[in-house]
């Protein structure tokens, strides 16, 4: 019996061949037109890929850069003074703080220089500080959105307007699979977190495929029941029963293929076989029982809880090993309008050790070289406080004009700060990196020209980076 997957590949490569052999885009090629666009992005570009895959650690709710990454040592002198108008420039703020006084709330946390490179890290991230020399801290991220929903939507899909494909689905579409038994794009939302206030919602569109074929949509792993929806055979149908059933099914489907002629039937057969393989490859992937104790310890005690950020970091590493193209973790609970220091401690405890462990673990296995790791939220937070401001306690509002995050591995220079903000961490004063620029850079590191990764829809050559200007941040590439 022929392996259906191989047959599918042959079919697909035949299509590709027809398209690339100068037959042009006649009516016959309509169906495969789209894959041609995807291929063009890869083959035409002279960009040498530095990374093969991405692990995106998305801190949903927007962590405070003032407390985490953007060190402003002189702010303590300005405690509770009004933010100068020369800094705030009358720029728009949210409905929560509009018309209110903007009083500076310096960070209560200490910063110190870490690693050989001596980059500044907050005491909130002791474990991660040990990996300082791998991190490229970007302080000049900026976005247009001032609220979570549009902020996350534009971060994950390149546009505030819902309906566009997500980052991971673009990559799946543009680069195809590295792995035949697992999805290209996996989403791992944390099932719990410490900062149990203002927990912002997630939406299926954040990992949806928009107008791209839905095979590119993210597969969100579940913590209850099957990790992949409908993965397990129902009770009473064991693997042997399933196999014999699938064999009969394939025989009939093949018969119908011969009679009807529609090659789509071949695809059905192939997908049913892939489903069968996923029934063993996914449990194998999520089973961490064979991980050595020292590895588990590295991720911290939470790793033993299903759905924890720590477990998801470990799973992300296991996925990197298995060449899943894009893994996106969502850790919620960062929306700290009040009692920020308390919630921040909790959230950082959630993520610090596991994130550091992920970096170390990838490095130990030689995977960090070609795995890009990104850690960022949808925007930043204001230097001015919300609520009753004391030295030890304050809240912060949403702030899109500057925020910090970091990149590591996959062709990134480690141990550096990139981009500068003013003395109040309010506006970018040097080397701005818009969300679009981050997207362009991520694609670039994977060897894809963001201008060429297109999909024709609604009359436009749609791109992840949209129609506005964007650039690859070359200074941070090794």
């Amino acid at each position, binding site marked *: 019996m022929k392996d259906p997957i191989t047959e599918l590949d042959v079919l697909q490569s035949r299509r590709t061949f027809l398209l690339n052999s100068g037959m042009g885009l006649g009516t016959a090629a309509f169906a495969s037109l789209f894959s041609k666009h995807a291929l063009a992005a890869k083959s035409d570009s002279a960009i040498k890929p530095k990374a093969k895959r991405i692990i995106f650690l998305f801190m949903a709710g927007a962590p405070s850069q003032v407390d985490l990454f953007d060190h402003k040592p002189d702010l303590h002198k300005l405690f509770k003074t009004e933010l100068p108008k020369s800094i705030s420039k009358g720029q728009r703020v949210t409905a929560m703080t509009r018309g209110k006084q903007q009083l500076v709330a310096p960070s209560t946390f200490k910063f110190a220089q870490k690693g050989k490179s001596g980059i500044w890290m907050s005491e909130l991230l002791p474990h991660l500080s040990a990996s300082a020399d791998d991190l490229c801290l970007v302080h000049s991220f900026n976005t247009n959105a001032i609220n979570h929903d549009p902020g996350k939507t534009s971060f994950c899909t390149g546009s505030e307007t819902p309906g566009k494909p997500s980052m991971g689905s673009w990559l799946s579409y543009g680069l195809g699979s590295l792995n035949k038994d697992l999805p290209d794009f996996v989403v791992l*939302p944390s099932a719990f977190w410490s900062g149990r206030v203002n927990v912002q919602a997630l939406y299926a569109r954040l990992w949806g495929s928009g107008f791209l*074929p839905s095979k590119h949509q993210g597969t969100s792993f579940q913590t209850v029941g099957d990790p992949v929806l409908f993965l*397990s055979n129902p009770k*009473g149908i064991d693997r042997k029963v399933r196999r014999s059933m699938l064999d009969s099914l394939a025989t*009939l*489907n093949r018969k119908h293929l011969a009679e009807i002629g529609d090659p789509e039937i071949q695809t*059905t057969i192939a997908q*049913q076989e892939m489903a069968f393989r996923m029934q063993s490859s996914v449990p194998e992937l999520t089973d961490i029982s064979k991980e050595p104790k020292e590895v588990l310890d590295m991720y911290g005690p939470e790793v033993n809880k299903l759905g924890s950020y720590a477990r998801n970091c470990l799973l992300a590493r296991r996925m990197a090993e298995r060449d899943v193209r894009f893994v996106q973790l969502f850790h919620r609970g960062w929306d700290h309008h009040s009692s920020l220091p308390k919630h921040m401690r909790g959230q950082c405890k959630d993520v610090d050790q596991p994130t550091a462990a992920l970096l170390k673990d990838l490095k130990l296995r030689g995977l960090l070289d070609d795995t890009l790791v990104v850690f960022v939220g949808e925007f930043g937070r204001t230097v001015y406080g919300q609520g009753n401001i004391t030295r030890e306690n304050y809240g912060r509002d949403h702030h899109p004009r500057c925020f910090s995050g970091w990149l590591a591995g996959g062709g990134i220079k480690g141990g550096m700060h990139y981009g500068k903000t003013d003395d109040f961490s309010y506006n970018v004063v040097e080397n701005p990196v818009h969300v679009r620029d981050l997207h362009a850079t991520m694609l670039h590191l994977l060897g894809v020209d963001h201008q060429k990764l297109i999909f024709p829809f609604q009359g436009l050559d749609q791109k992840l980076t949209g129609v506005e200007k964007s650039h690859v941040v070359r200074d941070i590439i090794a």
Partner: protein
Amino acid sequence: MFVIRKLIRIVFRVSLVGGCIICSAFVAHAKEVSFGRDVFPILSDRCFACHGPDAHDRKAKLRLDLADGPDGAYRTHDDITAIKPGSLEDSELWYRITTDDPDDLMPPAKAHKKPLTKEEQSVIKQWIEAGAPYERFWAFVPPKKPKTPKVKNDSWSKLPIDRLVLAKLESLNLQPAKEADKRTLIRRVTFDLTGLPPTREEIKEFLADNRPQAYEALVDRLLARKQYGEHMARYWLDLVRFADTNGMHKDFYRNFIAYRDWIIRAFNENLGYDDFVRYQLAGDLFPEPTNDQLVASGFNRLHLIIDRGTALPEESFFKNVLDRVTATGTTFMGMTVQCATCHDHKYDPLTQKDFYSLFAFFNNIDAAPETGGRPKNGLQPPFVALGSPEQKKMLALLNEQFAESDQAIKAKKKELASEKDAEKKKAHSQELKSLTAKYNEVKGKRDRLDREIPRAMVMKERKEVRPTHVRIRGEYDVKGDLVTRNTPEFLPALKKAGENASRMDLAEWFVQPENPLTARVAVNRFWQQFFGVGLVKTSEDLGAQGEVPSHPELLDHLSVSFVESGWKIKPLVKQIVLSRTYRQSSVSKTEQFAKDPENRNLARGSRFRMDAEMIRDQILATSGLLVNAMYGKSVKPPQPDGLWKSVTMIGERFKPDSGDAIYRRSLYTYWKRGMPPPQMTILNAPVRDACIARRERTNTPSQALLLLNEAEYLKAARELAGKTLQTKDSSGRLDFAYETVTSKLPDEKERKVLSDLVSSLEKNYAEQPALADAVCQGVDLTDAKKKAQFAAWTVLINTLYNLDITKTRE
């Protein structure tokens, strides 16, 4: 320097012209070049971004979408003529698209557009040589009834649809396929008109009906079914992004039940598409609007909406209007009007001013831009109560009594407070008690009745028209020129009934016969339903960047006859499904599928995977679980645990409904935009946060997992297994099951494969009774042998549900 460069160019040009005469000999171009079909799409795709309708970004004072005018293609600027009709040599454009000088080549590298292929160059060449004739863009010229073409195979069909299809087939040296067999035909047309499979009895009846009009009679029966309206409504709900939640932030419940139900009734009652458009765009503006008209105007409220909190209300307001205009553009115009939010449209002659003039029609809503806390019953004002006149009268009466009672209590409380005398105080207290009892009683009655009366969110104008400004770069807070309500300049003029243009004028503008878009956009979508792909494939965009129609004259024929029929949808649908084109067999050779995978030539019947809802409804229907109750509250059939929990910010947990409700048609499934039902989205249903005119159909392993393992689908298999085993004649069991699921009878080979499977499964389950027990859970069986048999047949039905032919409309 300049002169030298120019000289070099001329030399180059001459040699290029010579060179291309030779190379064009290799390119067989038998057919004549048509500007609309062949030239325009190339110019639009490669050139319009810089040389198109958008004046702001226009380079070199050249626009190629027009021939004449100071910037038109024939213009001479700095001694350079872009296109000189009839002369390649004098046409700068020809040099620019063929040169190998990278500095001069168009489109330039920085535009990230592909250079023209040899074939495309040859098209341009032929066109310029033929005098570079421009025509108006096809979709902006009102459709005209085409002549019925002459065909060689005159006896195939006399119907205009078929004549127009056959003429193209003959021009391509193709023949139509033979008619599909009767079983395929009844399955196809029953699915296409009702979204459900035919029953075995219906198949039997149709097979036995040998009258020439048997098929037409079948079609009439199907069009008269209530399920027709449900099925047609489903496509509409994708288009208008219908859902049960806000879709943003806290994603609260949003109640559009009445709108959904009205859509179903409108299709069943065969409401003219003109009224269908009028009611939705402007139902609230009829002099004395009916309930239906008001409910329909809820179209204007279907956009995503944020709840009050951190967002800036004026930004939310702008986004809502934008969403409304975008929906109108996609739904009724088939145009990407939203592209002109920030600048003039790059491809269509729609200016930014045109966009905001359209925007102005939708800018005057009398509603808060954000919903409050948790909107009661999912309703945000303005909304209307829809009860019967008696109910409304009763409610008014109760409200009056309630107010009186409330007043009385307040007055009594005052008296009580100011009373000093203990005796009197006591008396007042007594009276207050009885007043409170009365109050509670009235309130209870009122609230009960209130809950019974359905309500619908509607559109409502503010008294004073809100001024509309162009927004610079599309930024909600950067205002440009003031604009007044108007339709795009390049389309027929708007007729105003009063001094100020109204949404009703806009609705009338859409349905006046001169409007070149409305009918085309609608019939193209209906066609797409029956062939899997529209005559214009990009059914959401008939503009410059959309695809040109595969059969322009057929599209015009359908559009004109649609309008002439009084915009009646059922006759249009009937015309389509009665055609021989529609009735062709979808069986073909693999090479033919490869040559025309989407069946654009219509040389066969279309074959495509059915939508999620049809697949689920089919499983419910064939197993006997389907509950045909229509209308009302959306239902929550079971789904895997934890999905809502994983996304919510308000602690929402999915609680499945129970009882019959969970077996209602998928159309009624509760749609949370933040986490839509996976049984639907896995099979390509859109999230419903944007207007979708066509779903794509990809084949994925998650789909295979869903159809193999979903608990409710397995339950359905169990149900059908039970029914199958109850059939008296045990030798007919396979036929019964196979026919119920696929509408076909198995042939020898199929029968053998399946009976081998069932016997091996039976043996396996007999050997492992625990496994059999697990399959038979909830089934009233004690005998081990019977259990093994039951389990085996359940798996067999599960197999049938996973056949490619089961999930595919053939």
